[in-house]
């Protein structure tokens, strides 16, 4: 299979064509532009190696996310970054190439944080390995983590080694009725205390808090925080993770703002807050320039996530940072075989 992919890449390079790497295609909605002929990784599937006591799983990039997660669940483990499933076809390669992380991100880390190693085909079809199957590895530049979130614009990921974690022994959910200012403050204060916080979300006047860990720790936190335990618990977090809550499902335009967690209410439109305040979703058709300015003032950046004119929705990079991106793209993919413009209109 890898040889066939390498052939495709070499042929594309020879013909001056561009390839669009695609796993399940569940994130085709995202990004500035979809350019080039589809290179489908779905056929390159399967778990290569998994030893729960190593806390490492090595999988082919086309493996369905559900397959990876159910295999881990059998052994009481999980992908702690909780990648969203935007469709049945979501693949592990797509999860890492997008770099999208779910509700547990603020507590556990991002998709890139859990990448230990990657086997990739470069823009000339060479089969390369970076990182490894071990927890700690500082030999060479950290290209396997760099590739996470690059949306197939630098290399074709064929295999990934990911760190996995045990599923928490106990889990509980609490709800608090409060306003946005209070919720942002509460999330940040609690995140600064030794509490087993694994996710927070503020939407429609309710602050949702998920506690995960040892039974005793969860029980003690329930006592300490008060609030109410809602009847349906996991359903909420699953819908949050997969963006099927009403605010996501009905939004024709969805903005994503990644900012300093303590920034107060933004007043830009209907919104949902995650990651202890560091991630704000806004379901409104807004002027890109003003959103970008607001995000920048708040120490972060904004992206037009769904709907609207995508190119205008990408936050511009500072000129020297953009120039570095362009040099890196040229260094790793001089001919543009892996497509440009998916994550940014200027590279």
């Amino acid at each position, binding site marked *: 299979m890898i040889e066939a992919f390498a052939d495709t890449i070499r042929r594309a390079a020879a013909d001056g064509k561009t390839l669009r790497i695609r796993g399940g295609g569940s994130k085709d909605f995202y990004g500035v532009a979809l350019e080039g002929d589809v290179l489908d990784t779905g056929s390159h599937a399967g778990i290569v190696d998994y030893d729960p006591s190593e806390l490492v799983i090595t999988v082919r990039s086309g493996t369905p996310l559900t397959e990876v997660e159910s295999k881990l669940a059998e052994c009481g483990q999980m992908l702690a970054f909780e990648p969203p499933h935007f469709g049945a076809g979501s693949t592990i390669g797509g999860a890492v190439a997008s770099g999208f992380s779910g509700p547990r991100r603020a507590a556990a880390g991002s998709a890139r944080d859990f990448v230990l190693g990657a086997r990739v085909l470069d823009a000339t079809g060479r089969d390369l390995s970076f990182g490894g199957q071990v927890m700690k590895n500082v030999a060479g530049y950290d290209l396997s983590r760099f590739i996470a979130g690059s949306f197939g614009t630098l290399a074709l990921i064929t295999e990934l080694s990911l760190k996995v974690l045990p599923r928490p022994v106990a889990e509980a959910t609490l709800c608090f009725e409060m306003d946005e200012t209070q919720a942002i403050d509460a999330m940040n204060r609690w995140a600064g205390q*030794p509490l087993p916080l694994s996710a927070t979300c503020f939407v429609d006047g309710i602050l949702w808090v998920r506690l995960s860990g040892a039974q005793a720790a969860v029980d003690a936190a329930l006592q300490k925080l008060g609030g109410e335990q809602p009847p349906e618990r996991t359903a909420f977090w699953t819908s949050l993770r997969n963006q099927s809550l009403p605010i996501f499902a009905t939004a024709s335009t969805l903005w994503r703002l990644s900012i300093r967690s303590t920034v107060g209410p933004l007043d830009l439109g209907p919104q949902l807050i995650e990651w202890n305040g560091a991630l704000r979703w806004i379901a409104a058709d807004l002027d890109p320039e003003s959103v970008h300015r607001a995000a920048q003032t708040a120490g972060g950046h904004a992206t037009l996530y769904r709907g609207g004119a995508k190119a205008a929705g990408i936050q511009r990079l500072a000129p020297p940072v953009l120039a570095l991106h362009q040099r890196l793209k040229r260094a790793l993919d001089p001919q543009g075989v892996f497509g440009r413009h998916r994550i940014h209109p200027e590279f």
Partner: protein
Amino acid sequence: MGKPELLDPTPDALVDRDELVRRLLAGLPRHCVLASREELKPYECDGLAAYREVPLAVALPENEAQVRHVLRTCNDARVPVVARGAGTGLSGGALPHPRGVTLGLSKMKSIVSIDPLARTAIVQPGVRNLAISEAVAQYGLYYAPDPSSQIACSIGGNIAENSGGVHCLKYGLTVHNVLKLRFITIDGEALELGGEGLDAAGLDLMALAIGSEGLLGVVTEITVKLLPKPQLARVVLAAFDSLEKAGEAVANVIAAGIIPAGLEMMDKLATGAVEQFVRAGYPLDAEAILLCESDGTPEEVAEEIERMSEVLRSSGATEIRLSKDEAERLKFWSGRKSAFPAVGRLMPDYFCMDGTIPKRQLGKVLRGIEALSKEFGLQCPNVFHAGDGNLHPLIMFDANVPGQQDIAVRFGAKILELCVEVGGTITGEHGVGIEKIDQMCVQFRPAELETFHAVKSAFDPMRLLNPGKAVPTLQRCAEMGSMHVHRGQEKFAHLPRF
């Protein structure tokens, strides 16, 4: 000795020392530029004291504008630049370049700001790792990565090496605990990488910058993430009558769904060395001991300690001791934390290896190291971050005995090759530096090394930043391959070898 063809192809400098110093002084005060023999001497090596070199000059900027001036000056004059933090690195990453400037960041040591609610601190690169935790302790927060040199090592150096520590299995490495960097490229341009949120626009340049060993740029400001300080920590000391059983116990703890805050192993040679140095109270008849720490709320710790102890017992521990208070916890750790100096007292010199392996290969690798120890006739106590498979074999030798350092270097190379052979890596947390430059040729194939060079060229086209370190030239690896054929005749670890 180093051969001229092994030199990294750094361009010839356009100026001599006097002219370079004159240009540096155009942007730096007099006391920030060192150029006399006696002033340069303290900078001739870092924590890897076996390798020494005197730089052309040392620049000690006091602010970012001065850092930019040094880099611009060196770029214009085509002079190599070696960034240096506290100089505690163990792989020779801050070993000076004989034709280069050592850029010391030790004067930039202020904690710029602390935001307790957002749980972040902005610090300059010369701030000591432990000083961050000390400064934020009043808010119940701390900075998690804790390399054993944390009293002395600087955060800038931690960024360069992607440093780990005893607690990184649970809390991650430097790369997992940094939000934002001010990063100066060789042409003196200031870039902001990352952001105050949890991710940034564009590609993840921080992933490249962290752990790049001073080859891609110089960091002038770091925004670190802070974590709530656990209320309580307790440690279990478990003794085993064989290394294999101790190794299995490590796997069993993890398989039971426990991520200890720290999970460390020491073999008999190491505990013996340590007991002579600090009385940590380790059982000296045990072939191996494990230190298994739990942290969190008192309830959480009690629950986890019970589960850990059960697993350790059923894995064949001959003795289990639980720290009864903070003083005893620190005593149990004192031995582990002083393992390197303890070994240093037994022998004039030692090399500390840093391979990481899949944990299931522990038994095989330890037997391999034992066999190599006999073959080379040098003792080698072992301490490991067992939870993440990171080994620190300590090869003991006496550099005053002719030939013994060469033997130690060859022994070390064999250990690292063994780590690669079982699916591991030549360096878990100390970096490649100059020490492991040749083993990079064992771990990576030419096409992979070429990719590293392509990345380097996007940042530093003239290869002026820390040349000769971290990533070997293909030429060097080819040369090394032929040296392997003539094993025994190679003289492969002497300076100068840029």
